[in-house]
């Protein structure tokens, strides 16, 4: 028994294992050193904060070193995504804005191949293929601040993901979702309540008219059943995103709100008047010396 424990303690020191470990460490170290060298090179110009007035002419676009180093891509070289950048490239050669985003978008699939295949078939992906404006990887996931969805600072974290979607999809959907119980729960920090992507999907997102869509009428019961006990047809039959208006699908809720608002106002007013009258009587009695 004692010998076994000693063997266990000495285990990692066995010559074969130790060699492998050193080799792995060396490999990682050397790779990281290389990444660090490249990134430090980039950041020597790009980490300079612009003044409050903005960038001075000739100053490189600002990259937050802290955000980059805490992101999920902290150990990846800048040139992995910006693969067209060569050392000493002139500013005019490098494109910016949406064009840059589109360019970088294509480099994501170098590692995230599986996601790209799904994205291609989605409404967002189809728009990209048609050369139209659409949501690119970086629009939802961010760029230098990219983080895992489970990270509260991630742009795809439950609470933040709604803000991410409504950057483009404001309309009535933002308002009606915020009013819903799902929206309120998520806003208060729930990670189990439904966000936009819980029902609409994320990379495979499709409009409701598409038969494959998770929000197609035929598929809605199944979509609800991801969280809710049973996929009752009736459960999914109602209108989601119903506006609180006197007419339309939101009317019953609208009139219920109106009814209770007035009921509360009337009841509260009468009760306060009653309390005031009692206090008045007490005051009168005290004045008369009866108190």
């Amino acid at each position, binding site marked *: 028994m004692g010998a076994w424990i000693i063997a266990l303690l000495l285990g990692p020191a066995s010559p074969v294992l130790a060699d492998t470990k050193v080799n792995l460490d060396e490999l990682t170290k050397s790779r990281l050193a290389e990444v660090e060298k490249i990134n430090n090179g980039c950041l020597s110009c790009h980490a300079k904060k612009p003044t409050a007035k903005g960038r001075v002419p000739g100053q490189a676009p600002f990259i937050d070193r802290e955000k980059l180093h805490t992101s999920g891509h902290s150990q990846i070289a800048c040139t992995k995504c910006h693969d067209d950048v060569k050392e000493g490239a002139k500013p005019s050669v490098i494109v910016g804005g949406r064009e840059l985003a589109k360019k970088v978008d294509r480099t994501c699939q170098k590692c995230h191949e599986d996601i790209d295949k799904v994205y291609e078939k989605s409404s967002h992906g189809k728009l990209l293929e048609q050369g139209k404006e659409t949501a690119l990887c970086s629009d939802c996931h961010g760029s230098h601040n990219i983080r895992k969805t489970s990270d509260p600072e991630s742009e795809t974290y439950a609470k933040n993901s709604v803000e991410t979607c409504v950057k483009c999809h404001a309309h009535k959907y933002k308002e009606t979702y*915020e009013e819903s*119980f799902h*929206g*309120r*729960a*998520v*806003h*208060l*920090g*729930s*990670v*189990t*309540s439904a966000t936009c992507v819980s029902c609409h999907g994320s990379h495979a997102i499709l409009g409701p008219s598409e038969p494959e869509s998770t929000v197609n009428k035929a598929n809605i019961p199944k979509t*609800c059943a991801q969280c*809710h*006990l*049973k996929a*009752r047809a*009736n*459960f*999914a*039959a*109602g*209108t989601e995103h*119903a506006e609180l208006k006197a007419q339309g*699908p*939101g009317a*019953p*809720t609208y*009139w*219920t*709100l109106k009814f*209770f*608002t007035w*009921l*509360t106002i009337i*009841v*509260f007013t009468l*009760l*306060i008047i*009653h*309390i005031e*009258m*009692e206090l*008045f*009587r*007490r005051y*009168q*009695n005290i004045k008369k010396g*009866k*108190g």
Partner: protein
Amino acid sequence: MAEQHKSEYERFDIHQRIQHVMMFSSFILTTFTGLPIKYAYTGWGQSLAAFWGGGDLLLKIHLTGATVMLASCVYHLFYLVAILANKKTRSWAAVPSPKDFKDLGDNLRYLLGLNPKQAYWERYTYKEKFDYWAVFWGIFMIGGSGLMMWFPDVATAFVPRWFIDASRAAHSDEAVLAIVVIFFWHFYNVHFSPTFFPMNKLWYKGTMHRELMLHEHPAELDRIEGRAAQAKKDAGYRGSTAAVDSSDVIPGDIPGEKISHRS
């Protein structure tokens, strides 16, 4: 002193007192876990939600409170059946009657100084009946809509989706009405009223002192102590016939303790 009277009269039996404790503790819990959901987009709503552990935990605590409240409701309904099934304990005193409207008129005139004495209160005043029946209707509105939201997939087997959406509005708005009534009206009656400040101890003692009874429920006291017939004879009667120095009673004093059959 020709006759000796009891000094304490029971108004809340042990079951009623337990029901009331269950009701008010769960009411406070659901109030302070429910408000952050209604006011999710305000700073204070979010601070309060964070205090309860945020989103998911907040809802679990709210549902725990709701379970206790529904349990007190079920307890009370069983209790009511038991009370009404037994001939000895059967009483319809908590049911609204024409006398309540007469009392309301009498009392309002008294408060305005048009009546020298307050209403001839029976076992339950109209204010107490209002409190009781407000909770009775409230528990069905809030409890019913709450259950529909808790189990929406079950509820939709019986009602359409828009009904559940509307009931969510009813749930939170009826709750705000209840909160306002409890924390202003009920709290005035049993806590802030100078008669009872800091509180009416009835909720745990279950009894009321005879002196208070004389003032708060004179008609009932007359009935118990056998002066009802004499009281009836006296046409313009206001207040107990029991020999009592008027200075014993604080004029303008208003009854407001929690009364029996309250869940």
